[in-house]
């Protein structure tokens, strides 16, 4: 079916603005700082087969993997008009346990089964497990927290989640906020559907998916038909395995691209394992970056890309491996290695590596009034430089785009004081174009607490490109209340006493081009 381009653009934006409105409802009614202040959530709209039709521009790592959650819900339960589905099981539609996805159906008038779905995915600051924040240094999924297989959302699930979590009231409020957002989406999408009828709506959304596929086809047509490969390494899993390779082989075929991660390392003991959904999400992100900005935000183009992974590897972990950091750290390295490969066939995409870590800090304890709290934050770093541009400093890169917690909001909520929040000057790699500088954030603990730090690029800094220098690796320093100082090795869990101070210095981005050449 042919559609007037203006009408197609309106349609695309109609769906995207429904997703935006869902995001507003979620942010405004949520209770945890991670959702309401940092906006660590995403909202999207799906067709009845679970293809993503539109998204609000939120968090890349969520968006590329969300379709698998929706498909898992579709497979597991027949949702009626009043039902919602819920899932966080990384081995069945989820990514890591803190990310809980709620899926709600939208029925066409007179039809029994859903015509469309809306979904929200939000990062819940604590879903149980060995350490506050649910990203502990453990070896199995069971120790990471409460696992929800794809199922109908019931009061029972909510009660179980609340009893597993260290912050049950916050969980309830946040889950209600996710439902609130989904109801907003359902209402708007139902109105939209009523205006055009199911047949027309399906034809139009198919046209949207085709549009995205055609635009990506145009991008890929500029690639020479060849095979290239690249490799990069993760520092280590925090439990003894170091220098873990992620390898990619990129083959450009007529009208298709094969992205093959078969040569990557076996899954590891520690929680760095990524489930396949994350790998797909990282591939989605990289190709999305290559397309012009007007590419409609849907899944249509993914049919042009085959992602090959072998179960049991670091990029396609199998049960019962621990996976909490695969979502936040391994995803970033998959992006680095894939960009390295892509730039060999598409020099416009050549860029130095960015920060390469989400620099996760998790803290749990009690406030002065005896209320339990859990705080989660990811800290930005330096962006890698490109041929035409220095890398931006102090910014969230690639797979995440969460905001910082405003210091004033933070200190009103938690018994911790922020003592420094600065640009880490000189940490960006030198080059014809400089890498962006990282950040420094210092936390003074006013009461005893348990902290977890999960960070990467602590051994070697993010590599430069075409002669550019590497950015500085990150440093995580813990000054204990007894006066001793400890450098944490990128991944650590510690009990800290009141008065201790944790300082995170995040990596700078790599430089581009040899520094001595004049621009």
């Amino acid at each position, binding site marked *: 079916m042919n559609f007037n381009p*203006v009408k197609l653009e309106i349609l695309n934006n109609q769906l995207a603005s429904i997703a935006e409105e869902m995001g507003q409802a979620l942010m405004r009614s949520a209770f945890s700082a991670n959702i309401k202040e940092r906006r660590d959530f995403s909202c999207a709209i799906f067709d009845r087969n679970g293809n993503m039709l539109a998204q609000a521009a939120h968090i890349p790592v969520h968006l590329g993997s969300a379709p698998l959650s929706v498909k898992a819900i579709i497979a597991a339960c027949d949702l009626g008009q009043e039902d919602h589905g819920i899932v966080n099981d990384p081995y069945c539609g989820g990514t890591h346990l803190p990310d809980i996805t709620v899926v709600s159906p939208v029925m066409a008038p007179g039809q029994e089964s859903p015509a469309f779905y809306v979904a929200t995915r939000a990062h819940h600051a604590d879903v149980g497990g060995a350490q506050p924040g649910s990203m502990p240094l453990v070896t199995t999924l069971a120790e990471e927290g409460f696992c929800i297989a794809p199922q109908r959302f019931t009061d029972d699930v909510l009660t179980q989640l609340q009893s597993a979590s260290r912050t049950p009231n916050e969980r309830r409020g946040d889950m209600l906020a996710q*439902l609130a957002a989904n109801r907003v989406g359902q209402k708007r999408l139902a109105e939209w559907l009523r205006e055009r009828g199911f047949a027309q709506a399906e034809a139009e959304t198919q046209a949207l998916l085709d549009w995205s596929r055609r635009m990506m086809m145009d991008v890929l047509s500029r690639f020479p038909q060849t095979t290239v490969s690249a490799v990069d390494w993760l520092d280590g899993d925090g439990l003894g395995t170091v220098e873990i390779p992620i390898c990619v082989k990129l083959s450009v075929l007529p009208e298709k691209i094969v992205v093959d991660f078969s040569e990557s390392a076996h899954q590891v003991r520690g929680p760095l394992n990524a489930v396949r959904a994350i790998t797909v999400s990282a591939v989605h992100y990289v190709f999305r970056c290559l397309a012009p900005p007007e590419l409609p935000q849907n899944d249509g183009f993914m049919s042009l890309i085959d992602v090959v992974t072998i179960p049991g590897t670091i990029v396609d972990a199998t049960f019962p491996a621990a996976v909490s950091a695969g979502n936040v750290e391994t995803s970033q390295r998959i992006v680095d290695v894939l960009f390295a490969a892509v730039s060999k066939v598409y020099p416009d995409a050549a860029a130095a590596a960015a920060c390469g870590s989400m620099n996760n800090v998790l803290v749990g304890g009690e406030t002065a009034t005896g209320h339990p709290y859990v705080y989660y934050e990811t800290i930005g770093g330096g962006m890698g430089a490109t041929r035409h541009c220095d890398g*931006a400093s102090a910014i969230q890169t690639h797979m995440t785009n969460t905001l910082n917690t405003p210091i004033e909001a933070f200190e009103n909520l938690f018994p911790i004081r922020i003592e420094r929040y600065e640009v880490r000057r000189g940490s960006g790699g030198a080059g014809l174009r400089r890498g962006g500088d990282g950040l420094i954030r210092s936390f003074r603990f006013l009461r005893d607490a348990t902290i977890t730090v999960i960070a990467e690029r602590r051994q070697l800094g993010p590599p430069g490109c075409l002669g550019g220098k590497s950015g500085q690796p990150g440093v995580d320093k813990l000054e204990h209340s007894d006066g001793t100082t400890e450098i944490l090795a990128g991944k650590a869990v510690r009990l800290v006493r009141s008065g201790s101070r944790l300082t995170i210095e995040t990596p700078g981005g790599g430089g581009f081009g040899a520094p001595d050449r004049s621009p």
Partner: protein
Amino acid sequence: MVLVVCVQLRYHGPMNPNRISLPPVPVAVDTGGTFTDVLCFYDGVFRAIKLPSTPHDPAEAVLAGISELRRDVEISQVFHGSTVATNTLLQRVGAKTALITNQGFRDILLIGRQNRSELYSLSPTKPEPLIPEEWCFEVPGRIAADGQEVVPLDLSLLPDILDRCVAGGVQCIVVSMLHSYRYPAHEQHVVGALQELVRQRNDPPMDISAGSELFPEMREVERTTTAVVNSYVRPAMTGYLTKLENGIAPAKLRVLLSNGGIATPSHAARSAVYTLLSGPAGGVVGATEIMGRIGVDRFMTFDMGGTSTDVALCDRSIPVVNNFVVSQFSLLGSVVDIHTVGAGGGSVAKIDAGGALRVGPSSAGAVPGPACYGKGGTLPTVTDANVVLGLLPAEHFLGGTQPLHLPLAIQALKPLSESLGLSVQDTAQGIRDVANAVMVRALKVISVARGLDPEGFTLVSYGGAGGLHACELASILMIPRVVVPRFPGLLCAMGMLFSDVRVDLAQTVLAQLEPGADLCPATVVETLTTLTHQASRALDDQGVDTDKRVLVRALDVRYVGQSFEITVPFSSSIAGHFTALHQRAYGFALADTPLEIVAARVTAKGLTDPPVLTYARESIHDAVPLDTASRQPFPIYRREHLTPGAQIRGPAIVVEYSGTTMIPYGWLGKVDGYLNIDIGRLG
């Protein structure tokens, strides 16, 4: 030297020739990038002056217009929409400003919220901070979230900081410290100490302000950014308003704010950041008045001036947002939601590096203006293209007071046409098509990009250049109806005559309300009373009569644990009202969770006496074109001759003093009882 053009714009009845017998009248002045419009209304008559803006000193044109008007009438008040703050920010020519923060936080502007605006870009960018690194200073001292001083304030560094500011020629210092939205003591001490130092040392005067002064709201990044932008534009604004105030005395100056309300010059200068969208807000107010009278409540405004184009979408009310972005800066404050693009009639056409024809953002501005003005401009502009295409009849521009030179326009387009290998005519059409594409994109941002189909809206076209493009834009976007108000080039100024005095006050209170309790805590009631008194005093200052006042009290409420509030009108049932609103917005309510009253708000309005627009019965008839017998390709109609009920079938051109309207083939224009041209697609 200022060229003064003056005409009478007559609605009905003869103009009163007797100056003495008239009471002093209010005047509205809108400064644009190209023209300055001066407008007054009395005795059923609008009287207007349109004169070239004087960008080197915008007050020059304003004062010239005022003194011209004064020959005939006495002036009571001057309502003014100013672009001084906007231009200062856009061109980055504001005051040299320094920032003082707590130790450890001098990078607050550089870091921002650490997120990026482009999700899928290999080279995301952040806006260049207004304050260079060397002027971001720190002082030891820290107040915690509960108000306790946990690090004592150390003022010993201030003399050194001040030395460096003075040596660097810094004019403004913003002191922004954590938790000052509620505990401003440190900020105030630093401000006081600096002021004292400046006095003792006899330093040049320095504008020193506290970050929490303007918007005492939590979240340090947005609050500091707003305070810094405010200081950055304030000296330019203050100097400008002072000059105007002196120049128009004894008439009183009133400044239009970005929220569509009116304020005193001292208030406007103090919160200069609030005037960033002043002029365009006037246009939206004016359009809303006019559309309201003809029963249209869903419309898009299209204000195409010489230098830029402003668009807004009104869906049953004037769109107001509580934070806004200008020049990539996220700012606090309620403003009319306006989208601006840097293209207008004076925008210059050129061929870019990729060989494509581009229009704007550089503009021929007021001086020298488009080539066809014959004032020394040689670069091809959109206006020149319109002259070449015969859409802008040379002898009728600005009521014939500003002749347009076709040969100069052709000459300006020649180099471009040679590079493109096109005829001058085709080149002119190309420029027009590109300009239309830029405008279509702007209109899409406020409609299509929000999922709203333009087909459901009417396009209201104003600004001198708007009428020449509006119908074509409507065709592209499938908009069925275009309205061109009477005096399209003066609508922003006209809107100012309809604006009310408006004072918005808010104070953070952070008081808890237990579940089930409805009684508002005494501290909150006290705060509301204090704010009400402040608001009343502000209205006193602005001379608003007591019977013309409207005061609205409200509270921002949320559940304890949430970060965003719902504004609830103040009543005896706060909790009940909040619960109902929360249930409606999000589909849930929590009976066991206490509420938190975050802020108390008072909005005070002083209603002004707006001009009374008269309506005349429409009697359907065909309008009569001018008998020019010239080489014009289309019949030309003079707007002043059109009476209610007149009909014009496109293609046709309607000329008038403040703008030109083109009705294309397939469209029919009807003049309504308010003398708007209401244009609809035929068939």
